[in-house]
């Protein structure tokens, strides 16, 4: 089988979109934080929290959407901590972000052990099932890829559109972007930079947690350690790749996911037999770095990204 054949398979694209979904949620969350001027390196840990919280809720008998809501809220709680430490207190965003990641990850594992002291293999839950959208899913190749997914994937795509609209078409989005471009301008127009930034970090962190919840509630159907596996860090790169624009970031996520899906499949071809599999595992990352180099040359970084703002200082 040839690479071209793989690319024409509907199942390949279905897998790519599935792999992309959690990345879309989390990258969108990161984008919201960064557009307001805060780099959120807590993303990796917040995804772990979301994955666990969503899964546990369902495991304990909660509904699926209730699980998503719990995941989102727990992400927002960590977002609040991050926001308060980095915005009014002006602490280093790198240090706080990494701290949140470590704290969130270890706290999750601790809670996991508390909740399930005896289990060795992680219990499964009844997760989201694919929801076929009739007629549309009959379109060759892209039909099944886009319209035979779980509801969370649809939600991811809807959110991309919603975030784009909010960012560029509403006063709220305007205030958020301005906080990331020039906080002094926001302050001079009578808005509170701190409030905007903290809210942005909270909402963004909520999105990241839903991205994590996708893994347990729509992909693997159970929770295990190391399941987030660097996806958060990939999302940081995706935001740069997308030059801080939701649409382009979505594109980046799908592209990365396609590379990932491709490498799994190529490994199984005769070509794959001759090459060490580690090369394939590396491939999506190497291609992402190359794409990043090309795409981010002209990217417009939010001018006040990582610049703390202190009212009453010049």
């Amino acid at each position, binding site marked *: 089988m040839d690479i071209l054949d793989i690319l024409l398979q509907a199942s390949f694209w279905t897998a790519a979109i599935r792999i992309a979904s959690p990345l879309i949620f989390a990258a969108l969350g990161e984008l919201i934080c960064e557009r307001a001027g805060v780099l959120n390196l807590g993303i990796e840990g917040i995804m772990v929290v979301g994955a666990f919280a969503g899964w546990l809720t369902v495991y304990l008998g909660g509904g699926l959407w209730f699980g998503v809501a719990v995941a989102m809220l727990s992400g927002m709680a960590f977002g609040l901590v991050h926001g308060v430490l980095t915005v009014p207190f002006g602490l280093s965003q790198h240090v706080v972000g990494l701290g949140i990641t470590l704290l969130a990850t270890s706290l999750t594992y601790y809670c996991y052990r508390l909740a399930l002291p005896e289990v060795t293999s992680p219990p499964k839950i009844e997760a989201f099932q694919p929801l076929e959208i009739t007629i549309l899913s009959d379109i060759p190749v892209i039909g099944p890829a886009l319209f035979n997914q779980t509801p969370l994937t649809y939600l991811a795509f809807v959110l991309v559109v919603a975030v784009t609209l909010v960012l560029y078409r509403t006063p709220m989005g305007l205030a958020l972007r301005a906080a990331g471009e*020039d906080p*002094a*301008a926001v302050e001079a127009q009578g*808005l509170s930079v701190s409030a905007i930034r903290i809210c942005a970090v909270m909402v963004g962190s909520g999105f990241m947690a839903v991205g994590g919840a996708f893994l347990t509630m729509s992909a693997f159907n159970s929770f295990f350690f190391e399941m987030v596996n660097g996806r958060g860090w990939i999302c940081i790169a995706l935001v740069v790749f997308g030059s801080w624009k939701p649409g382009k970031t979505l594109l980046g996520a799908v592209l990365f996911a396609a590379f990932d899906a491709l490498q799994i499949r190529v490994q199984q071809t005769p070509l794959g037999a001759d090459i060490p599999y580690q090369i394939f595992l590396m491939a999506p990352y190497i291609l992402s770095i190359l794409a990043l180099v090309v795409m981010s040359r002209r990217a417009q970084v939010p001018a006040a990204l990582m610049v703390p703002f202190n009212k009453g200082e010049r």
Partner: protein
Amino acid sequence: MTDPRPEAQVVLRLENITKRFGKLTANGAISFDLRQGEVIALLGENGAGKTTLMNILFGHYTPDEGHVEVFGMRLPAGNPRAALAAGVGMVHQHFTLADNMTVLENIVLGTRSIWRLGFGRAQARQRIVTLMEDYGLRVDPDAQVGSLSVGERQRVEILKALFREARILILDEPTAVLTPQETDDLFATMRKAVALGLSVIFISHKLHEVMAISSRVVVLRHGKLVAEAKTSETDRAAMAQMMVGSEVAAPVVRRADPGAALVTLAGVSSPDIGSAPGLKNVDLELRAGQITGLAGVSGNGQTALADLIGGLIRPASGTFHVKGDAPRGWSPHAAISAGIARIPEDRHKTGTIADFDLTENAVLELYSRPGFSRHGWMNWRAARDFAAKIIRGYDVRCPGPETRIRLLSGGNMQKLILGRVLETAPSVVLANQPVRGLDIGALTYVHEQLLAARDRGAAVLLISEDLDEVTALSDVIHVISEGRLSPGFARGAMTPAELGVWMAGDGFEEAPHAA
């Protein structure tokens, strides 16, 4: 301006405002009223506390004592939103505009409820267009702010205030960055605003502007209100004296004694920098013991010339000699080593590093000199002594050499740069807009120091938009226009009107350059 009727309503009252930063009292018990239709000029030396006072009035800073009343209502302290709602609009000394957003977005920001869907672009645009017509403020609402000139940005700032129906307009040194033409336009706008019933507080160090536009002057010195007067009952000399506390006399210029040419350009051209023209076939000589003045409207190649001599760019063609040699590998480092010292045009961006303290900023260009470092190790004690010497010798007002330079007022920052430049006894001084934003005392001081450097045998290049400044100080004047340089005119050889013709770009055809 005509005086407003004395019974005109008080629109703004500052009551006993006090603000301290650590040990420094930036504002001490200041009270005054602004009446409807009035233009108050707020005067004071650099660091006198003008911006601080306006920041309190607008709610950026919280006062330690006192309060602000607008239309009889007391404003909550430290709340810009309340000030805006009460009708106070402020154009900051350093603009508060987001560069990557459009003019319209910057204006609309914060004026709509956060929860509203859509921000009524069409309606906002309509209003902005009407305002632009009413007040004579032209600017493209869809342009990115980053692509606008300083003059245009200022118009956006004013539009921002007007869009919110400001009744009181505060302009903090609006003219410091404007060309004379733009200043005239601004004054036309201010007159229209006053005619429409607004009241204005205007800050400027240029006393002729104050005479032209204000109805009353309020003078601060060291944070205290020291004088108030009707503009019609005072004059420039009196105002200068009120500000400084003693008489200010323009420096006496002695005859120059020119020596050898230290920097020579012959037929030099350089590429354009963005929309600003590069140099076109320029001949120029900077002689020791002489001030060479460069007159012209800014954006006509001054930046290219300053960058070339300062080592930031290299000539594309023509010959360029420093002290008789054609330098190879021309760079800022080479320029500094050749004894060329620079007072850069933008003290915030290229002159200093905002979060470094005064000591670090003082040795920015000199750190590798013996004395300041040995075998790659900094000698901080020497650096601190050097900074302290500048602070004393050049009257830099600050808490001490450990202060971050960001906290200094513009004038004091400039004095530190001046000290850094002159303390090394440079053979060439490149002074690009050296007195921009400086008060009359500091300005006179900078001029004296440049003359003193000349008398010590330095070659000084003075780049300024202010024709009075250039003609007063320069021994030889060149006019720059669209990257072309006029021949040198000796002191007094040309009237300001004749220079103006060259500045408009008209003399160049009659006097073809030796190509």
